[in-house]
């Protein structure tokens, strides 16, 4: 009986101990990251989802990486590439790389991965037109040379190969074990190996000591899934997690004050905009009204008052973080100019009744920004009814062109011109709000096939100017991504929203 009680007491003590305190994690070189959502699968190149891929990229490598500063492609599993002709690309692969199961990485792995993605039986999202749809064939030249043949000239191939759209799986394991087994225990070449995924709770990875780029500093990386912001914040302040994604602007001070963590921020490539819908009848058909709206909304005030300065203003459809960016002139906040433009268009602002659809909690302070825009428009006498939608309803409305004259949306990570301009300014696209402009239609069709870098830059610069003048949106800003980072971790966030732990260092303080 005594021993039973002793066992119960011992068990209770063990159970009550809060596991892995911040101090212990410094010794064992562990990092815990708090994210709002969990991955949707552990299978590479199947589901298009940035959060999922962010975690998968720790396990799998891509052919190319992006320089976090210049966003230019840099070597990863491929050491270089060249364009053989308009529809043929050749990649030279890195030698001596091994998968976590010991299988060597060769051109066969690249071929097998893409063939898996394009096989209808895999039901991969990546087989669609916006992803690897334009790819015709992958040819193995030799073990370390591989060619991509495309259906038409496709300059964006390089962006897909260097984003998250090509995570290389082991050819032999894929064939022998099958995708289902790889979904349970992924095998990549990446800097971390899979340990366990407890659904809705955590994903645990451990360091790959044989990584071709040298081992990471962190020996163990745990992603914890904490949906509520306030709970995530509590976890950071109590030392349970070391990195917290998405600190709201107003909470920055509270994190800094805590003495345990600081806020690290970066200008994101994700953009926010207010669509002025011309795909349905109404005042937004008139370009003068759309321009007037751009003069009527005081973007700088929104950034300062609502977002506490945590956003960078944009003047055209692309942000400087985009490889195809070209500068355009900003619409200034000028209510007199707005009044004049309204008058020219024969619109009496005080009689204007608009509806603004917005999501809540999808983008930083989205709903509050929308309400603030309505308040600014009120200064001109424009009545704006703000409708807050649940996310699914918001998407439905935009797709079915059922929104009000205005809607708020974010887009990104927007790293190349095609990915923003093609889906958002053509009438037949799923989430566009503007279209049926013949000139723009033609220019887009041409721009997406220009292979020569100079020609491509010129084509996108021209498009940006045209779009700016057409004022299909009130151009708002690039988000700032704010992370709470514990004092024991040294890590710099990236513009592409990747929480990349290979770069993180753990330091004793």
């Amino acid at each position, binding site marked *: 009986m005594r021993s039973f009680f002793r066992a119960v007491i011992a068990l209770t003590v063990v159970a009550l101990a809060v596991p892995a305190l911040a101090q212990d994690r410094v010794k064992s070189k562990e990092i815990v990251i708090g994210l709002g959502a969990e991955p949707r699968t552990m299978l590479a190149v199947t589901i298009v989802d940035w959060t999922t891929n962010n975690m998968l990229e720790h396990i799998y490598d891509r052919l190319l990486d992006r320089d976090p500063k210049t966003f230019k492609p840099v070597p990863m599993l491929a050491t270089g590439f060249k364009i053989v002709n308009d529809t043929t690309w050749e990649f030279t692969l890195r030698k001596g790389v091994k998968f976590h199961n010991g299988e060597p990485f060769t051109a066969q792995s690249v071929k097998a991965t893409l063939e898996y993605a394009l096989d209808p039986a895999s039901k991969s999202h990546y087989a669609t037109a916006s992803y690897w749809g334009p790819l015709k064939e992958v040819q193995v030249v030799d073990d370390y040379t591989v060619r991509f043949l495309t259906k038409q000239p496709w300059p964006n191939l390089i962006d897909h190969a260097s984003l998250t759209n090509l995570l290389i799986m082991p050819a032999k394991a894929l064939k022998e074990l099958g995708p289902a087994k790889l979904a349970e225990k992924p095998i990549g070449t990446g800097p971390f190996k899979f340990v366990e995924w407890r659904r809705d709770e955590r994903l645990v990875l451990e360091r790959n000591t044989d990584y071709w780029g040298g081992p990471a500093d962190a020996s163990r990386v745990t992603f914890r899934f904490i949906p*509520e912001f306030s709970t995530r914040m509590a976890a950071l302040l109590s030392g349970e997690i070391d990195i917290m994604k998405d600190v*709201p602007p*107003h909470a920055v001070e*509270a994190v800094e004050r805590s003495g345990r963590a600081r806020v690290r921020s970066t200008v994101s490539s994700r953009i926010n905009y207010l669509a002025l819908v011309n795909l349905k009848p109404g005042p937004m058909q008139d370009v003068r009204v759309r321009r007037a709206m751009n003069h009527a909304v005081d973007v700088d005030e929104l950034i300062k*008052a609502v977002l506490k300065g945590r956003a960078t203003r944009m003047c055209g459809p692309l942000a400087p973080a985009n490889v195809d960016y070209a500068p355009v002139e900003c619409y200034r906040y000028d209510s007199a100019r707005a009044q004049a433009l309204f008058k020219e268009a024969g619109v009496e602002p005080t009689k204007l009744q608009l509806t603004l659809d917005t999501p*809540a909690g999808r983008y930083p302070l989205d709903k509050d920004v929308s*309400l603030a825009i309505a308040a600014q428009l009120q200064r001109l006498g424009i009545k704006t009814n703000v409708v807050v939608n*649940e996310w699914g309803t918001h998407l439905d409305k935009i797709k079915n062109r059922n929104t009000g004259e205005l809607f708020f949306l974010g887009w990104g990570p927007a790293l190349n011109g095609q990915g923003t301009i093609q889906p958002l300014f053509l009438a037949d696209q799923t989430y566009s709000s503007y279209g049926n402009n013949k000139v723009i239609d033609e220019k887009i069709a041409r721009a997406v096939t220009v292979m020569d870098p100079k020609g491509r830059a010129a084509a996108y610069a021209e498009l940006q100017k045209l779009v700016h003048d057409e004022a299909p949106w009130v151009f708002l800003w690039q988000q700032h991504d704010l992370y709470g980072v514990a004092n024991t971790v040294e890590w710099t966030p990236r513009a592409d929203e990747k929480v990349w732990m290979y770069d993180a260092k753990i330091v004793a303080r």
Partner: protein
Amino acid sequence: MKAWLGIGITLAVVAAAVAAPWLAPVDPLASDFAQGLRPPGALGHPLGTDQLGRDLLARVLYGARLALFIGACTVVLTAVVGGLLGLVAGFVERWPATALMRLADVQLSFPFILLAMTINAIVGLGLRNIILSLSAAGWVVYARVVRGEVLSVKERDFVQAAAALGVGRARLLFRHVLPNVAPSIIVVASLQFSQFIVAEAAISFLGFGVQPPTPAWGSMLAEGRDFLYVAWWLAAFPGAALALTALGVNLLGDWLRDTLDPKLRV
């Protein structure tokens, strides 16, 4: 004591809701960015302001209107629909009645909040739809209680006598049975009232239900929770108002039950 406390709190909440336009210093929707996140006691804002500089007192007061409105509409709707169905089911006792009660069982096999939320997620968000969702999920309780009461009242002598005298069924139902069942309906209604407003708040808290900028306590709490570490008052006051209202109505309901129908268990 309890009764007076219940009546007092309930009356105070009702008064605050009715007099909101006079008690509130400003429009609950009017934002003033320069005055954002002022703590309670700030000039002109006794309960402080939110992130857009909207006056919290005004929002809490108008929130009372909304909460009582939602509670009242839902209670009336469920009482009428559920009560009538229960009345008929108890009186008729044929297969449609049995089927109806089976349906009630089906519904009871699902958690109330989850059911209301599921319905709400599908029919769409907003004030009207949350009332409909709560009602669709809540009518069962009345149907059950009323049916049970009717079954026992029906056997009582005066009803039997009336039936023997040839009183019509409808007349029998509404003149003789209903008055005897009414106290139960009132008691159930008073006990359900607070459940509805708390459920509405919980559903809005999870991202369904009444959406901002409408000043409903539930959505205010959901907004305020994100500001918990910088502006405690944003979640504190709507939360307190909700708890206080629920407390008052519960006490009132208890008192009503003790006086009208001490045997009833809900």
